[in-house]
């Protein structure tokens, strides 16, 4: 019956449902009390008035003016950062790929020495380094 009571506040009940509800309301003081409380909640909510802070209209008009001038409206840093992140990531990957290709072209291979920039250590080189004295 409680569901029917709530529905009666938002929707048109059938004649039969309405009759049932009216009878239940006559019988049950608890249900009558619930009806009063639900009505109070409804009134509380409809009495809640919200408004924007002072200067809201001016801020909107400034944003519209900026929009007209083609300025980028940065209302939320994180929002912009998220949308920029993909572009930055893709650019980064492209740059890395270009570097790898240029390394391959200049060195003819892609071994670890190519990346570290160290010449291959041959036995002769190592001996000459070890024997060198100031």
């Amino acid at each position, binding site marked *: 019956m409680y569901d029917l009571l709530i*529905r009666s506040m938002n929707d048109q009940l059938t004649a039969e449902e309405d009759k049932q509800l009216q009878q239940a309301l006559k019988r049950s003081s608890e249900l009558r009390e619930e009806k009063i409380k639900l009505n109070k909640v409804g009134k*509380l909510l409809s009495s809640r008035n919200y*408004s924007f802070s002072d200067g809201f209209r001016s801020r909107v008009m400034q944003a519209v003016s900026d929009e007209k001038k083609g300025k980028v409206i940065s209302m939320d840093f994180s929002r912009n950062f998220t949308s920029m992140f993909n572009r930055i990531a893709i650019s980064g990957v492209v740059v890395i790929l270009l570097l790898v290709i240029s390394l391959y072209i200049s060195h003819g291979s892609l071994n670890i020495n190519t990346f570290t920039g160290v010449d291959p250590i041959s036995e002769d080189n190592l001996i000459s380094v070890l024997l060198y004295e100031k």
Partner: protein
Amino acid sequence: MRDYTSYSDSELIEKAKHGEDVAFGELVSRYEQQVAGTVKGMLGDNAAAEDVGQETFIRFYRSLEKFRGDSALGTYITRIAINLSLNEIKKQKKVISLFYSRDDEEKEFNIPEERNHGDESDTKELIDNALLALKPEFRSVVVLRMLQGYSTKEAASILNVPAGTILSRLARGQKELRKILEPLA
């Protein structure tokens, strides 16, 4: 200086389309309160709601050319405001889930018992918190039907769901609110 208050919404839209910013400003004044009710009912009385309110009018400005007048202007702007509010809630949830555990996120809403419920600002705060305690899908229906006074059909059109869904969500929302606002009812 021209007085724009006497113009109808459609006349103001036409003028705004032709670059008359003052006409658009008049539309902002007319619907500011309605947008505030929608976004603050959905997000609470905070800075994020102010930003979403501002974004609502900017989106509306961008879509002026597309507005054909099929629905009332208020309904059209409210649809933008609700969609942006729901997006904001999703975004906030993502941030919350990064920093808090699911248990923290789903903690039940409790009304502080030591409050003086006769105080007007406390009452406002309780209503705001009660609304925020509702799931967004119920909250959006409650805001449209109970705060903004839209009919079931209009709310269904704004949220793009069947009228039956509006009624069932509204009933759930009312039951929750009845429990949460017990001290005031």
